[in-house]
């Protein structure tokens, strides 16, 4: 057994996290910053942070992940990181020529109290920031929140630094897609385009972290929201923010700063959450839903009704990020699957409340934990087995030990590809997700069926 020391008996732990279901803020900030076109993320701290984040993102996306670091030494840790950051800004603009450097802090620079705006002003005063280029920042101490809140902080920084109130409202809607994959961002754009909407999506990592093989390395790939578009978000008619944990801070900040009304929705994963997204777009923009979207919805529903017998009553354990799991739990309940263990690492009571509400009428008790870990989830599973696991790659150890099928979903996925290219949001994403769930369940059924009950047709 790979997790041979995990006991069945659950003893509450107060101090020790085992097999975390989250990671730290800076990586989320780095990911969000990659969703600005021409942006080089910069990690203000020890160089190990930057190396770890780049490695993890590169393993997850199988794509180049460029980012720089202040490379703190002991001296910088004692005297402050100003000299390092000013030098980094100079070097980055000189050598790599980005449009914008997006600085995020780390536990180190936060603990010593470096003031990034002050340092950026110093760099500017010293002539290290070329005209028309930007240095933006987000405070992302690793000892607060999780990678999800780090993403939220850098997304919010885009509002704080770039949004300007317009004289007149522009005929466009802001979309904050949440901490989702580049493929999901493309799918959201597909839906808004199908509805004929003009949108500004930020951040947008499509065509950054799912780029083509061309024989050329582009330091700043084609994708990413353009600065000139970000500047206009303050004049948009409305903001539709997907995923409260990842997107609400930016949406609310924009509302406060430029009076752009915001609609904070769940991530459009599954039938109902996507319905709400489409319906919100429809009412906010005053457009009709095109037939093409009705067809996409109909196909998802068709699969659900055709295959309901497979989904019905199947118990599932979910681990991942709060926005994803809330939508996913609703989706599972909607198709009569039973999410019975739900763990996210990102702290926050709201998550537990939402999962409780969504599963209130479930025929089975549901265990949920916000500040949980995969060790706890594994123990729950030992006590109350499930038919399916949905979560990131680390769950493969649980899957193998307990002989339970796993659908890889969330972050990070280090041992499979697909999430870069194929979405799980929207109706088409729902189809892909259910196809994966079905394959996992049916492959298991085929594997375990006695010969006389081995079926050709389902």
């Amino acid at each position, binding site marked *: 057994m790979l997790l041979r020391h995990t006991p069945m008996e659950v003893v509450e732990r107060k101090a020790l996290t085992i097999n975390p279901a989250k990671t730290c803020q800076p990586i989320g900030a780095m990911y969000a910053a990659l969703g600005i076109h021409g942006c080089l993320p910069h990690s203000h701290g020890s160089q190990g942070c930057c190396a770890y*984040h780049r490695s993890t993102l590169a393993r997850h996306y199988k794509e180049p992940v460029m980012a720089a670091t202040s490379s703190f030494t*002991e001296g910088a840790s004692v005297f402050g990181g100003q000299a390092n950051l000013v030098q980094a800004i100079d070097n980055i603009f000189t050598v790599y020529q980005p449009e914008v450097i997006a600085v995020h802090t780390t536990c180190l620079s936060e603990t010593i109290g470096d003031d990034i705006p002050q340092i950026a002003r110093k760099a500017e005063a010293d002539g290290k920031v070329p005209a028309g280029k930007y240095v933006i920042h987000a405070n992302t101490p690793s000892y607060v929140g999780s990678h999800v809140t780090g993403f939220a902080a850098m997304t919010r920084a885009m509002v704080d630094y770039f949004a300007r109130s317009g004289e007149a409202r522009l005929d466009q809607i802001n979309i904050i897609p949440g901490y989702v994959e580049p493929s999901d961002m493309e799918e959201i754009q597909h839906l808004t385009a199908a509805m004929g909407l003009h949108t500004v999506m930020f951040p947008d990592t499509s065509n950054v972290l799912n780029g083509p093989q061309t024989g050329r390395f582009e330091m700043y790939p084609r994708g990413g929201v353009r600065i000139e578009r970000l500047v206009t978000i303050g004049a948009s008619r409305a903001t539709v923010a997907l995923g409260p944990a990842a997107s609400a801070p930016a949406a609310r900040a924009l509302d406060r700063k430029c009076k752009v009304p915001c609609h904070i929705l769940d991530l459009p994963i599954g039938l109902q959450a996507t319905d709400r997204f489409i319906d919100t777009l429809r009412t906010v923009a005053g457009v009709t839903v095109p037939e093409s979207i009705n067809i996409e919805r109909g196909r998802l529903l068709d699969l659900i009704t055709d295959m309901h017998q497979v989904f019905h009553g199947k118990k599932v354990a979910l681990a991942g990020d709060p926005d994803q799991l809330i939508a996913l739990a609703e989706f599972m309940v909607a198709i009569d699957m039973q999410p019975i263990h739900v763990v996210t690492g990102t702290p926050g009571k709201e998550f537990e409340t939402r999962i409780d509400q969504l599963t209130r009428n479930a025929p089975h008790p549901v265990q949920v934990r916000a500040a949980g870990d995969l060790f706890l989830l594994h123990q729950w599973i030992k006590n109350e087995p499930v038919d399916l696991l949905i979560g990131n790659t680390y769950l493969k150890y649980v899957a193998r030990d307990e002989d339970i099928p796993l659908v890889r979903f969330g972050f990070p996925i280090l041992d499979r590809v697909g999430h870069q290219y194929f979405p799980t949001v929207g109706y088409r994403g729902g189809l892909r997700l259910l196809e994966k769930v079905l394959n996992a369940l049916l492959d298991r059924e085929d594997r375990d069926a006695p010969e006389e009950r081995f079926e050709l047709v389902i």
Partner: protein
Amino acid sequence: MSAPEPSVECPEPIAESTDPNELKQEIIGRYPTKVARKRAKQIVVNRGSESCEANEISANVRTTPGLITQRGCSYAGCKGVVLGPTRDIVNITHGPIGCGFYSWLTRRNQTRPEGPEAANYMTYCFSTDMQEENIVFGGEKKLRAAIQEAYDLFKPKAISIFATCPVGLIGDDVHAVAREMKDKLGINVFGFSCEGYKGVSQSAGHHIANNGLFRHVVGSDDTVTPGRFRINLLGEYNIGGDAFEIERILESCGITLVATFSGNSSYDQFATSHTADLNTIMCHRSINYVAEMMEEKFGIPWTKVNFIGGAATAKSLRKIAQYFDDPELTARVEQVIAAELPAVEAVRDQVKPRCAGKTAMLFVGGSRAHHYQELFKEIGMRVVAAGYEFAHRDDYEGRRVLPGLKVDADSRNIEELKVEPDPDRYRPRKRPEELERLKSAGFRFKDYDGMMADMAADTLVVDDISQHETERLIETYRPAIFCAGIKEKYAVQKMGIPLKQLHSYDSGGPYAGFRGAVNFYREIDRLVNSKVWSYLQAPWQKNPELTAKYGCD
């Protein structure tokens, strides 16, 4: 940069027509003046072994902020590299969640517990997940509680604690907590002050790990593993199963492996490692400190070995046999070499015609960028540029430069343990006349010639290479293969050049020993001769002219 030729053949390297000195000037010309001056000392045009002038490179110096480095941190070197492969120690990261999370199972260290019930914590990640209140009010209390919880759950043989950046700043004393919990629990508990900002790279973390293992574990158990020829293997981390292959070979030679630091290791191996009669060093950079200290305290000599490549493996085995100077061992080693080498040579000969003349670059680690050059040479490939991520000057220029090395402020912060001969257990393994005889027969103790001596004249040696330098080297030389790590992999591959990861081996390995050499030859053959790199241009990009119009009006 232009798109590469759509041919299956690798583009001809243009090294011959490129003046490496001009390229160097062009590369550093992009930098601000001060940076250019610094990098000029870290980029060296190799003089070659025939030259009477010695090479000199600046290494183990601070990373220049903003240049986009390959390097990681001290914590990564300590917890990730050296202690990462230890399976029966509960390794607790004291800090915010990230450090523990990123170093969780990501290095491909394999391990084989003694049985289904034996301890194996490598699949687990343990962290105190420090929160803001722990930063403000101190985290020792939480650390103490975490150690207690880990003990209650797992009853491990040992628990170690790794300090992350904020721990040192807020003044948590991981060593005091470790001592206290050691007394309380009655098991070995020890800490490492491997905060990420220590030193200038992972290298500082290696040193800190060496010190901690030496101080807290090595020599704590005098049980002698039976065997006539008893050695330790230092600096082998069992990435992709390398240590398994070396274990297999040593066993078939009748050589007893007391301890490996730290691939496929166990706590007891470390504890009894001082009873071995020879320390053999694979990765000089990461582990030479332990070898030095074991020699001083226990009298165990050390020698550099290299199990990367069939010939190198044979040479290393002969070296071990020469040390023990036993006819039976010598004969058995020769038998093993004779039995194993033909299979290696057969694959080498198959692969060589397809690879010969192609070029490679290696920018990785602190020893592999050197060790793997031999494998490339064996299949006729030329290394046109190489460098380390976190090595010191001795790894480039050889240990002869050590006496003259200046200790800078960053290195001074890493503790140097004062080691003296153990009053009871110091035991010279060889009499002075035996040592002399070995030396005069060409046996070299505690020596390493470094990378540069093995590189051709006019090749480029670059320390702590930046992204900018990587791109310029590739654009200029268009090597058939580039060896580095995951952060470099996909950028290099987007340029149409295959990248082989020499940290993690991608999903491959083992590459050490005889079978490893076979795997590596085949892997390089696959990479440099694959047709998948030939599809970069679509037919309409190759021939964009139209011959007819249809439906376009």
